[in-house]
């Protein structure tokens, strides 16, 4: 079809999709709210066991990568292809750092016998079990979204290099960027709810 590309329409579609993602996590946050109300003291106890430094580092990493993704879009608009490629590579690299940190964090917890259905959690307080259960499910699902976001950014990166994404047609890059911001945004909520709780 030889219709003119409707950029606003594409963006509406993307925003609706992002909205559905927020509600997907919203279901988990509802669970968090209900259980936080039930076990406030164990949530604060569990929160102290999480490594705040790694959490803070990861927050920074994601925020910086969000900035570089936004910068890459501006670079494309200004026809600075090299800079756009650089920004994108850096953003994907940030995603890798985030996942590596997450790996060590989860690994350390596993080492202390804290994982779903582990002895320590089963014999311990139910409130703690719920806290760590939610922690693993929410950060796990978030991790999957980080991976999905990295795949989207990589596709955009290839399209930029091949020259399919240009200053006049950068919807793919922009939408991948929006998705990446969403991943970042959800983490902004996850971080205080688990690491900084009380």
């Amino acid at each position: 079809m030889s219709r003119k590309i409707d950029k606003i329409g594409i963006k509406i579609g993307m925003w609706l999709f992002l909205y559905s993602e927020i509600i997907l996590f919203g279901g988990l946050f509802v669970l968090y709210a209900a259980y936080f109300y039930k076990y406030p003291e164990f949530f604060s106890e569990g929160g102290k066991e999480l490594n705040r430094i790694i959490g803070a580092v990861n927050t920074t990493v994601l925020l910086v990568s969000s900035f570089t993704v936004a910068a890459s879009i501006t670079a494309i608009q200004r026809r600075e292809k090299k800079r756009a490629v650089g920004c994108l590579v850096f953003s994907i690299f940030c995603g890798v750092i985030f996942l590596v940190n997450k790996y060590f964090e989860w690994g350390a917890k596993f080492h202390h016998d804290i994982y779903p259905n582990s002895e320590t959690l089963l014999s311990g307080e139910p409130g703690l079990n719920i806290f760590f259960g939610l922690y693993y499910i929410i950060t796990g699902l978030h991790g999957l979204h980080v991976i999905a976001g990295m795949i989207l950014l990589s596709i955009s990166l290839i399209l930029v290099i091949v020259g399919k994404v240009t200053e006049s047609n950068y919807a793919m890059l922009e939408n991948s960027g929006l998705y990446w911001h969403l991943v970042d945004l959800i983490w902004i909520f996850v971080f205080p709810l688990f690491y900084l709780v009380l």
Partner: protein
Amino acid sequence: MSEIQSFYDTPAPPGLTGIRAWLLTHDHKRLGLMYMWAILFWFVIAALCGLLLRTELMSQGRTIMGSELYNSLFTLHGVIMVFLFAIPSVPAIFGNFFLPIQLGTDDVFFPRLNLFSWYLFMFGGLLALISLFSGEGFPDTGWTFYVPFSVEVNSNVGLTVMAAFILGMSSMLTGLNFVTTFHRMRDRRMGLMQIPLFTWSLYATAWVQILATPVISITLVLVVVERLFSVGLFDPDKGGDPILYQHLFWMYSHPAVYIMILPGMGVISEIIPVFSRKSIFGYKAIVWSSMGIAIAGSLVWAHHMYTSGMSDVSVFIFSLITFLVAIPSAVKVFSWIATMYKGSIEMTPPFLLSLLFIYLFSIGGLTGLVLGAVGTDIHVHDTHFVVSHFHFVMFGGTGFAFFAALHYWWPKMFGIMYDFKKAYIGSVLTAIGFLFHYIPMFILGMQGMPRRYYDYLPKYETGNFLAGFGAYLLIIGILIMFVNLLMSFRQRVVAPSNPWGGTTLEWTVPSPPPVHNFVEKPQILEFPYDFTEVIERTKMVKGNENQ
């Protein structure tokens, strides 16, 4: 006369031939038809499951199957009917086919995403089929997958739940597509209050699909996670709360009821004015009631849980909001009736089916109030009364609206007309069978027969026998209806572009429509249900005949 090629002869994207012209198509009309055949297949399977269930219940004790098969079968019936028939039926078939035409455009906004949704739908159905014949067999949890049973049972819950997850995604992407199309592809000259009511109802539905579906997705994911890792989020031993599962489940699944019924109401709002030759009564009220149902319907989920253990205050509030939903629904029913008042009625099969819809849906709605009121609900909770109530809404409502839509748009989709007489016989038989089938269940429920039970006390035998008898009438009626529609392919009585005298845009294009829908720029009416021209035309034809 220069022949205009229909979309059957023009593949989109161009160059595709044979089966690939269908499987790789971006054309919303072809996709609508592909949905239709798939959904009809599922409908027949699930209806036969239902028939077997009622046959089993016709007499006490074992009749044709054991209790375990019975449990699996009612789960299968529920899962297919909900996820593969009721939710996708009207939006995916008729929405895909007619929403772009009614908006005066050539396709949906994201045609490739539309194709992707169809593949997701087929893949979800395939997973459901696989889960039937692999592992420990089909789940026997009921379509609600309540914990703790769904987490602990050995049957193939995981796979079935994944199927439901994928079907949910397909329905959500369709909704996303419709909302974007509605806003960005609509003919520029068509204002908000000039949009046909069917499209309005799809718009309201699409929002519910986008807002509610992710909640069921995450809930189903949690069921799988619990089965794999036993985190214990819903297990009281580990600090979880099983009631929370029910909340999450109904947060989607109650709005899903409106995903099923709203498009059906939209169909009826199209058919009633056309065959009354009179402008729809309360156009704006119907538009707003669609949106009102979508909003209020999203806030009533816990009325499924009056007996699950909630505070009295929450029970009271949810009961109150439930009653509020009845208002916009009643606005619609009264508007349809007021439309017919002093109209010039022309009886046709789609019109008859719409009348049956109004009658059956009203019974379903009114018995819903019995269930919405806390006092009476506690008496009939989880009895056959509930089964009968929601079948009146889902089958008497959505199902009959689906049949009506089939008969209304059949000539447009295929360019051929079916036999009226057989369609009447089929519809009436279906309705009579329906009443025979479900009225006894109301009484059984009032007498205390629980739903989903394999066996019952002797005093329930008469009612169950009658219901089973009705089921056979019902199935025969549907069979006549479907066979009659299929026979039209053989007789090939060519239908004109506007056989009914409709005023919405789909009746201004040839039957079946060409690939870009409109041959010339569509004329947007000041008001979509303005019949002056149609009436003038009929008068002229009649006048010519008299001379």
